[in-house]
């Protein structure tokens, strides 16, 4: 009798041990092989998503620790910016309505987006932080100071170099034109940079332009931000669906009747809700018949202000990041 019981107990113990060993083996195997499968396997969408998104974030250096240079070089994170010559006749400002409408767009699982449609585009202006070189301002602050009903964050900026105000958007990059005047530049008047600009009539100009170019085109508002434009003369410019990865975004577009669309996308909420790619932005704009469109600063800066509140959900503890420039819609 005793022997049988002892044998049963031993068998149970053995089965339990085997099972634990099995689980341990599975976990170790999967953990060790996952990086190889991810970076060198056949799952291209996911691979590009991870590499591009990390490259676009503040942690791009981590990739160079894990992956060889030759591998990373094969990923061109943003298509090279090309000179464009928009056909300005494709847009006629006929929507002069004071109406502004905002809607939320829900993608099935990758991001939440907010699209704002604005009539009478002449009222869109560039605002710059009044504490230039010391610290930036929140988009909502700049909007309220301009008595604006709506606003989005603007172009490139650099934070002050450490000290009291690091990470607060103190200084724009490239150049800033407001009310027809160059209020900031760290380049010469003939250097070409990717722009998001509005003429005095409210026509959107995108692509590589210098200050001189824009002044000759009667531009009154402009900021700069890296990359190629999204759409020019109705043609999408982004061919690589994963270019520049997935992240929160801010972008501007204009339809043929002059209506301006502000598009802001939330992201980095979880591993599956990383955000939108440039291709996603292009697709959304094309659904709305946008003729010209340009990408602005995303990441933590992506902010949409409308009627007194921030409508999207920036990943910032204080509700909004301080930035150097913003596009405001004046009353």
């Amino acid at each position: 009798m005793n022997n049988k019981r002892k044998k049963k107990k031993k068998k149970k113990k053995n089965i339990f041990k085997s099972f634990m060993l099995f689980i341990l083996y599975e976990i170790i195997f999967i953990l060790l092989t996952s990086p190889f499968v991810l970076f060198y396997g056949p799952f291209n969408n996911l691979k590009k998503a991870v590499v591009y998104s990390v490259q676009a974030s503040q942690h791009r250096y981590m990739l160079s620790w894990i992956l060889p240079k030759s591998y990373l070089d094969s990923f061109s994170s943003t298509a090279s910016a090309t000179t464009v010559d928009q056909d300005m006749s494709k847009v006629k400002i006929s929507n002069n309505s004071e109406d502004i409408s905002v809607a939320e767009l829900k993608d099935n699982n990758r991001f939440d987006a907010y699209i704002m449609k604005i009539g009478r585009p002449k009222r869109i202006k560039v605002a710059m932080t009044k504490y230039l070189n010391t610290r930036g301002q929140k988009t909502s602050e700049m909007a309220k100071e301009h008595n604006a009903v709506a606003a989005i964050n603007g172009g490139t900026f650099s934070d002050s170099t450490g000290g009291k105000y690091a990470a607060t958007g103190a200084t724009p990059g490239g150049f800033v034109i407001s009310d027809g005047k160059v209020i900031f530049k760290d380049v010469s008047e003939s250097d070409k940079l990717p722009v998001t600009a509005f003429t005095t009539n409210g026509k959107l100009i995108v692509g590589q332009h210098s200050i001189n170019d824009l002044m000759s085109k009667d531009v009154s508002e402009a900021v700069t931000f890296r990359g190629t434009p999204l759409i020019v003369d109705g043609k999408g410019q982004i061919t690589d669906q994963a270019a520049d990865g997935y992240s929160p975004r801010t972008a501007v577009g204009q339809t043929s009747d002059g209506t301006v669309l502000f598009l802001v996308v939330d992201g980095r909420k979880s591993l599956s809700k990383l955000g939108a790619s440039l291709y996603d932005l292009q697709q959304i704009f094309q659904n709305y018949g946008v003729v010209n469109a340009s990408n602005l600063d995303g990441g933590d800066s992506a902010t949409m202000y409308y009627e007194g509140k921030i409508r999207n959900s920036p990943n910032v503890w204080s509700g909004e990041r301080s930035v150097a420039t913003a596009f405001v819609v004046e009353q």
Partner: protein
Amino acid sequence: MRKLRNYVVWTLIAAVIEFSVFYYVDNNNFKSVGSYKETPIVVKKASKKFKISIPNGAAFMKMSDDGNYISYYVDGNLKVADTSNGNVDNVQPANNASIALTSWAPGSDILSIVEKSSDSSGTYMKMYSYNADKKEKTERIANDTKKIAKIEVSRKSDKIVDVSESSQTGSFYLKIGTAQNNTEAIYRVNIMNEPQIVDGTEWKTNIGKINQFKLDEKSGDLLVYEDTNKNKVKVEGRNSISLPDVEKQCLLSVDDDNNIYIGSVVDNKVTQIYYGTYQTSASKWQSIKLDSPADASDIFINNIGKIYTVDNLKGIVTDTSTKKTYKFNGTFVQIYDDGVASLDDGKLVNILFK
């Protein structure tokens, strides 16, 4: 042999699981989607009247400046409610932590939260913010450590005795101690969430109310506080504010233009209020005499310098400059941007300023 066969099978199982997951994510999560469903955002012109009940026993009621939200505790649980419709949300502290402070960030619908927790290495105060619109609680990450901003305190019994938050400076001052007159230290948590002790504030028994201001745009913010032994208002690292006509000073407020409001105290009540910037000489400071002396705790000065007094007995709030009076029902709760909030028979009600 048997063992080898086992490992082969196990490897196959792992490979199948791994590849299935990768395949699923690759195909489902990163495929571009063509069209999107629009949900219009309609901005309702909110009726300014409150529609909200507050449960019995609710304590530490605080409202956001715009009056949109109210936070309170019931049975030790923190709640944040929407004053326009009465919807209530629970705000939970982190595991094994208790909430030490809630304070609405000026001019916003963000509630600053500080939580106290202890572990084997010590007792800490950790910083969070709760966005009432988005119903999201986030850690305040310090720029230097890239981890949650935290302060180590020396005693488990330490509390946050006073606080000063400013939308102008972005700095958050916390007076930590066991009682109003028992300060362990005052910390300044700057705009990058880096806590630092304000020089000269450690282990003091004579620091009363605190506030903050800036000398000018380029310089950082400074702590201003009451020296309860000398009955004078002092500034961190600088001379105290001398008002020759005032025997006993108390610190009332600081406005967005960096004007410091000091009360002249006679027989424990404020009879006159003096205000001006730190750089302005005392002789040039303005003053306003109160029609009837009031407790410092019954004087409210908002960010643009409007001074109100509350008479709890008569249920009246007075605007000291226009002399307009506002009658409220029930017990006084708070003066906010648009009016006076009070608790009347379990309901939060409001009287709007004209």
